[in-house]
């Protein structure tokens, strides 16, 4: 049954193409917010407030358009959340595909467009920022047409900044986005497409009701786990949270149930009535597995508890981030953390440092490896130390991704050099327009964990963008590169890498350590080895002189304090045999030189 008074849509765009600004414009045009709210950037302000724990992220905002109820559904912002994005898209019937027409089609434009196509959405291309002097709506329309296989003529143009073209967009939503389909009389069946944790209200689940309705006081269950809950509250965002009696079939809203942690809320899960056996799971559900791992340790061991609390709290907000305690001889007690991808890892790290207020040490990130043992067992290895004895390894497999890079054609050469350098292989190339080409390559994920984005940026002089998705685990000639400091292996500095680059990587790590480990009373030998074979070695010269010239009666206390400081400084370092390793050393093996900054 068509629920003709409803429309659900989302806005998809590459970052900075104007999604937030356009959303605010639409809320203003429909009277949901006032001119003053608009000037204050409603959605972004709410984001800020959410960070301070005041209001809750508006994952869907309801607005009246003519005599219809229109829901604008927010999608997560970046590539590592492809799965979450696709679930959010499944809560809609239409998508505004927004492109900055000064910048043109970018990697996430394409990635998001394909996700929307897969979700069977009606796509409405919108060319934004036409007020900019550099706007090239014709060229960008052509690019979009190439991506989507549609007619470039007659695409909507808008300036989210000035408001020009906004009413046409509203009309297009009414006319082109199909009303949802569903059976209001059936037992409730709802898709969980997002969830958040709020300090005051606990877990808030965002749902799209397909059939039936969700009401306060109902008993529901989550189909993936079979767990049952009482619904304490339902409602919608207008744009602030507003309680309601029910969420009707075809519509979206929030549910507060008695859930203490996000652990049991799985994005993509289905909600059904508690006592019901007939409602079927909505297809496409996955339990996303982390692909990138790193160790996170407190800089000083007494901060361990503080760090644990912060990590637990972060996980409340992001169940796709996993962690478990681990210990390292060099770093003491900390956590092994798993992330969906590289950006995800960075986002989490930044939030940890900002919100936890504890200084952390992060070990070199690594990917999950699949190991086929000689006895036929297949195990997943999350860190170098877990790798079985080489004698028991039949096959080592590494995760491989398919990366799509959108770039001006003249940068294809440098990009291919980069891809080859990173053990990647060419898949295909497509022209979008005279100034834009898609280059698709397969690359081992491990080769991307350090600085690949930055290098794509520099190979394309800033014009290139990239998106990727996991394609599977592929057999590779991998080795464990052991790092020895003063003859002792330091597990936190050891890495798994491809044999062909082991030599180079070994030298890089040693060079980084030479720069960060201060000279000490003894000479320090730095070696990298594969198995028992040393492949690179260097040393850090011994300190030459470190002695206070004057020390008399009046100085004793002060000198002792200086010595205590020296000792405390040393204590903050990790002791490996005779050697004190500062935390920067652990960080230095992370980078391949340059500062990391990704977008």
């Amino acid at each position: 049954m068509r629920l003709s008074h409803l429309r659900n849509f989302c806005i998809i765009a590459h970052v900075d193409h104007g999604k937030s600004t356009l959303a605010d414009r639409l809320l203003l045009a429909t009277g949901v917010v006032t001119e003053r709210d608009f000037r204050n950037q409603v959605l972004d302000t709410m984001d800020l407030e959410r960070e301070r724990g005041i209001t809750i992220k508006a994952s869907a905002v309801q607005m009246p358009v003519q005599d219809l109820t229109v829901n604008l559904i927010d999608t997560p912002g970046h590539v590592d959340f492809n799965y979450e994005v696709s679930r959010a898209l499944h809560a809609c019937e239409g998508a505004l595909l927004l492109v900055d027409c000064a910048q043109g089609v970018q990697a996430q434009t394409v990635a998001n467009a394909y996700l929307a196509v897969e979700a069977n959405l009606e796509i409405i291309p919108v060319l934004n920022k036409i007020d900019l002097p550099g706007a090239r709506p014709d060229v960008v329309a052509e690019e979009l047409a190439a991506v989507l296989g549609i007619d470039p003529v007659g695409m909507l143009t808008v300036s989210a900044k000035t408001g020009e073209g906004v009413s046409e967009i509203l009309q297009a939503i009414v006319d082109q986005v199909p009303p949802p389909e569903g059976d209001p009389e059936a037992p409730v069946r709802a898709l969980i497409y997002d969830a958040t944790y709020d300090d005051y209200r606990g877990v808030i689940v965002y749902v799209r009701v397909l059939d039936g309705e969700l009401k306060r006081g109902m008993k529901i269950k989550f189909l993936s786990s079979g767990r049952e809950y009482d619904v304490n509250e339902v409602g919608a965002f207008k744009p602030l949270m507003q309680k309601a009696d029910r969420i009707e079939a075809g519509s979206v809203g929030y549910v507060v149930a008695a859930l203490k942690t996000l652990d049991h809320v799985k994005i993509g899960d289905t909600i059904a009535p508690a006592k019901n056996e007939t409602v079927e799971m909505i297809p496409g559900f996955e339990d996303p597995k982390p692909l990138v791992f790193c160790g996170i340790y407190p800089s000083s061991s007494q901060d361990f508890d503080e760090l644990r609390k912060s990590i637990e709290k972060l996980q409340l907000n992001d169940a796709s981030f996993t962690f478990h305690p681990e210990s390292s001889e060099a770093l003491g007690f900390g956590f092994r953390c798993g992330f969906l991808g590289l950006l995800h890892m960075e986002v989490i790290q930044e939030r940890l440092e900002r919100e936890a207020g504890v200084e952390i040490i992060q070990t070199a990130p690594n990917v999950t490896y699949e190991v086929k043992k000689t006895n036929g067992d297949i195990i997943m290895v999350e860190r170098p130390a877990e790798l079985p004895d080489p004698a028991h390894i039949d096959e080592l497999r590494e995760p491989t991704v398919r990366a799509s890079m959108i770039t001006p054609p003249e940068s294809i050469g440098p990009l291919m050099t980069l891809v080859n350098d990173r053990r990647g292989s060419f898949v295909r190339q497509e022209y979008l327009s005279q100034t834009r080409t898609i280059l698709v390559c397969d690359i081992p994920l491990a080769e991307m964990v350090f600085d690949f984005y930055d290098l794509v940026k520099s190979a394309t002089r800033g014009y290139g963008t990239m998106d990727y998705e996991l394609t599977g685990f592929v057999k590779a000639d991998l080795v464990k590169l052991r790092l020895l400091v003063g003859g002792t292996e330091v597990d936190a500095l050891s890495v798994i890498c491809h044999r062909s680059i082991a030599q180079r990587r070994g030298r890089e790590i040693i060079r980084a350590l030479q720069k960060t480990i201060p000279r000490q009373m003894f000479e320090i030998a730095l070696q990298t080895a594969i198995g028992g074979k040393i492949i690179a070695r260097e040393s850090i010269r011994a300190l030459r002189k470190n002695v206070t010239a004057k020390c008399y009666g009046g100085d004793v206390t002060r000198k002792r304090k200086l010595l205590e400081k020296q000792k405390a400084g040393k204590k903050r370092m990790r002791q490996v045999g005779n050697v004190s390793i500062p935390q920067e050393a652990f960080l230095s093996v992370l980078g391949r030189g340059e500062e990391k900054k990704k977008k």
Partner: protein
Amino acid sequence: MTPRRLDNDRSAVAAIHRQQQAEPSLYVHIPFCETKCPYCDFNSYRVAGRDVDGYLSALAREMDQRGVPRNPPTLFLGGGTPTVVEPDTLARYLDDILGRIQPDPTREFTVEANPGSLTREKIAVLKERGVTRLSLGAQSFFDHHLATLGRVHAARDIEEAYAWARDGGIPEVNLDFIYAVPKMTLREWNETLARAVSWAPDHLSCYALTFEPGTEFFTKRRAGRMRSIDEGLELAMFRLTHRRLDHAGYKRYEISNFAPAGYECKHNLGYWRNRPYAGFGAGAVSYLDGERLSNERGLARYATSVGEHGHAVVEREALTTEDAAREMVVLGLRTQHGVDLAEVDARYGISTRALFQQTIDKLVAGDLITDTDRLRLARRGWRLADGISAEFV
């Protein structure tokens, strides 16, 4: 004013110190200099415009009120520059101090002096009052280095002052030198040492220039307007000092101090052997009954405090037995004599071996200390003494 108590487990240490230790040594601080040297972080002030008399009467009052040790094994008059004042003032306060203790012509009695501040007349005053040791801040024999150091005297003045002291019959004379001064060459330092030795002083102190926080030098270096000399060069100077002086019969008995056997400064040795001392004057520190007491450093506040309370102690630090033991090891390690752990254990009733054995093994294996009858810095250990000591604090 109630002094701040930093620790309260002091009774044990106090008892130990009372029953095992002799009378404390006596230190008196005269915080005046003709000018303030840009590298110096001693508690000293340019004398011009200061109320010297006021200070000296506060000093007298402090000694009266707190009481000086009646028979200190050594007496040290330091600064600043105790000889910066007029001869009659010098005579007056020397008498003031000496009047409070038992006379003993065998007692080591040291006075520090800046060559620019000395006259034959002042030497005569010192001699008359029984001063046995004069410590002269020579610093360098090169006028350009003296200029860098902002010293008020030239090389020529050192020679003169030294001759006066000798002629005046002061039994022992020490010369202080500073090396590793910016732009100093190894050759220059070698020449300085050769010349110093040729004068046959009784004692030599050779300090590597230290950029002390709060000094003009420190600020300049941080701002990039001054550079310390190359580390390798400094190390070469450090080694050269040892070699040259050892050869000439001046044994290194502490990191920066050299003397023929029997001519060591007993007062300073007392510091390194963790013996008690009573200090009087602005910024002076005492170590009595296992407790360290520090006086107010500012001149006006020192005088006011003494006036009001009869003392100017602003900080008391009572050491625990373990801290005291650690300090004894750290200080002892600065000396050639080293430290006898059994003695430390006996004094403080703890087991230093239990505390330190691992550290000791590691340092012995690294050729940094030796552990025979006593714990001592090994040859290679002298230049790394701070890193080594840090293992024991």
